[in-house]
């Protein structure tokens, strides 16, 4: 998007239109000839997968919304009506519910890629921050979407999470009352959550457009973490990356379909098939799996307000990552010490997720606190220090050299990730 594209349409109609609204040129320069590093591995396909999942959720969601009733007396039954009477309603519902989980699988891989390869570093800081904004919008959307079926977990999850805002000193109680539209989670809450759940994905769409725009200024990062120097370092997006992304997308959709068609309720909670009952509290209130690490962090801190701040802080800290990581070397492929702490971070996040599903008793509390401490230490202590004291491996002179080796040994790497330094000479 920097400057005009030099695309000239083949047809006269095309040229007429292009002069008035140069959208074909925009698509051509952004997604046809756009130069992408030739050494990208499959972790780079998840951006495209995420775009697909956003469209999938919007399409299934819009059709579901034609049949859903956002009223406490009707919601649960309207969802069951979709499952039973609407043609392929069962498929729409299961695609949408499992699609949300798939969306988060993809976003966590996408973020993990960014964390490992230093994709947040200069000059991609704004790109990264836009990503954090998208992540926050996704979490809000998913949270509100889960309330809509008005099952036991919908209601009680909404009660627990909205009550958190009351921890804010002074204004907390008022904020919660306005959030609820009443004095407890009720019909007003459900109605406004439906409205916002419909709205937010389109805001996500807008921020995604900014995210892709911000990406196209410097172009993609790559596993070697070095910027492109010559045209030998890159390949045009089409056909090399369109076809690679298409292959990765189909594999991902197979994974998605496995859940949707064969184990559609695996990732859900049985209690959400019980209609919401404000008088009966479930034995264990748990959010969906993708919120579990943050739920663990929330419960790890004994103070209510500090727990809330820690939970939001665990996402807000990502915004500062470009400045917290002091390393001059971008990619984890050339940072052996960093790699150890990175994989510990990933394992730690998974353990936090497991702890989020456990009752907050005994050993689980101690473990949650240790894991929360490591989570924050990674960003606030480890990354800033590591950049100053680590010994990094020599970075290749160019992407082309990373792929071909200085002796042109032709050791291929387009499919594999360069986490070990054995692909350069």
């Amino acid at each position, binding site marked *: 998007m920097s400057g005009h594209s030099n695309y000239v349409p083949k047809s006269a109609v095309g040229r007429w239109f292009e002069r008035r609204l140069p959208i074909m040129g925009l698509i051509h320069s952004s997604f046809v000839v756009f130069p992408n590093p030739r050494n990208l591995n499959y972790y780079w396909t998840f951006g495209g997968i995420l775009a697909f999942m956003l469209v999938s959720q919007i399409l299934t969601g819009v059709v579901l919304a034609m049949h859903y009733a956002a009223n406490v007396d009707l919601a649960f039954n309207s969802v069951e009506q979709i499952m*039973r009477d609407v043609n392929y309603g069962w498929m729409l519902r299961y695609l949408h519910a499992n699609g949300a989980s798939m969306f988060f699988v993809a976003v966590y891989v996408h973020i993990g890629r960014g964390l490992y390869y230093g994709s947040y570093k200069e000059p991609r800081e704004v790109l990264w921050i836009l990503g954090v904004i998208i992540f926050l919008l996704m979490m809000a959307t998913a949270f509100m979407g889960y309330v809509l079926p008005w099952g036991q977990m919908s209601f009680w999850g909404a009660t627990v999470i909205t009550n958190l805002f009351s921890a804010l000193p002074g204004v907390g109680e008022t904020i919660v009352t306005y959030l609820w539209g009443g004095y407890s989670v009720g019909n007003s809450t459900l109605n406004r959550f439906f409205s916002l759940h419909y709205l937010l994905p389109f805001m996500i769409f807008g921020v995604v457009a900014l995210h892709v725009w911000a990406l196209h200024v410097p172009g993609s990062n790559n596993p070697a973490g070095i910027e492109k120097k010559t045209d030998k370092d890159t390949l045009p997006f089409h056909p090399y990356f369109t076809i690679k992304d298409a292959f990765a997308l*189909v594999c991902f959709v197979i994974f998605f379909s496995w859940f949707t068609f064969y184990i559609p309720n695996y990732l859900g909670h049985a209690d959400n098939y019980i209609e919401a009952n404000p008088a009966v509290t479930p034995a264990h209130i748990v959010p969906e799996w993708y919120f579990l690490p943050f739920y663990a962090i929330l419960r790890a801190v004994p103070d209510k307000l500090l727990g809330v701040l820690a939970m939001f802080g665990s996402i807000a800290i990502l915004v500062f990552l470009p400045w917290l990581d002091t390393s001059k070397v971008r990619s984890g492929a050339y940072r052996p010490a960093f790699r150890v702490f990175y994989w510990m971070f990933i394992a730690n996040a998974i353990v936090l997720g497991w702890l989020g*599903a456990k009752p907050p008793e005994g050993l689980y509390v101690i473990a949650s606190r240790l894991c929360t401490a490591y989570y924050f230490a990674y960003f606030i202590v480890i990354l800033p220090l590591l950049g100053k004291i680590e010994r990094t491996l020599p970075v290749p002179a160019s992407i082309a050299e990373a792929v071909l080796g200085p002796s042109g040994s032709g050791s291929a790497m387009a499919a594999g990730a360069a986490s070990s330094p054995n692909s350069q000479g």
Partner: protein
Amino acid sequence: MKRFKVIAAAILVSGFMGGAVLADGGHDAPLPPKNDWTFAGPFGTFDKTQLQRGFKVYREVCSSCHSMGLVSFRNLAQPGGPGFTEGQVKALAASYKVKDGPNDAGEMFERDGRPADRWPSPFPNKQAAAAANGGAIPPDFSVIAKARSYSRGFPLFLVDMFTQYQEHGVDYITALLLGYSDDTHGVEVPAGKYYNTYYPGNVIAMPKPLNDGQVEYPKGADGRPQAPETVAQYSKDVSAFLMWAAEPKLEQRKETGFRVILFLIVLAGLFYFTKNKIWSRVEGHH
């Protein structure tokens, strides 16, 4: 080494995703035994005769207390279900009286049921249901097979992702129906309640609903019932029926899934070979 890490991370992530299943707790109650179900697995289908038997058990025993308000009479005739004919469904519906109205005179009236009507509730409202059952409302049966579960524990909950185990609910329900016992194992059971091995907390408000020989099954060609008229058989049959009531589109879902995934595998293969062909022109790519 890299590949190992990717696989290890994938296992950990799938473990993490499966972790939500662990949330149930299910502290003191033992795990329900796993049964064989005809509708389990990727090619599972309902056994129509089993569904019909289960429906008979529901109708004769359970429906006196448990509503099934999301199921209509006509669902009993739709494909993927018990396989009653339109005529049978019409006759069945007509055997029930349904409140309707107001008519032009402004009065509510009773009429014979129609196939489009929902299964009539045994009680006019929740309060009547609770009053008739010692304060406990018998749960509606429409989605109960999906509303009940138990914690499978590690590593079974990971294995379940691959074996497609989705029958937690029916295994639990079957175990519950068979779980009544005179021996309370030291648990205090208040008057008006009953001991059940599989119910969380072991004290359930529902008395043992099934006894041997209670429901007469249709006879086979040899004059004997087509399935044993035992509590174990009743429990399995009614659970299978409840699974259908909760997931009437199960057969269509699994069938469609097979076609979709097969198509996608072929498509993935085509994309894979095309991708390799295109990338083979790139220097340094294998």
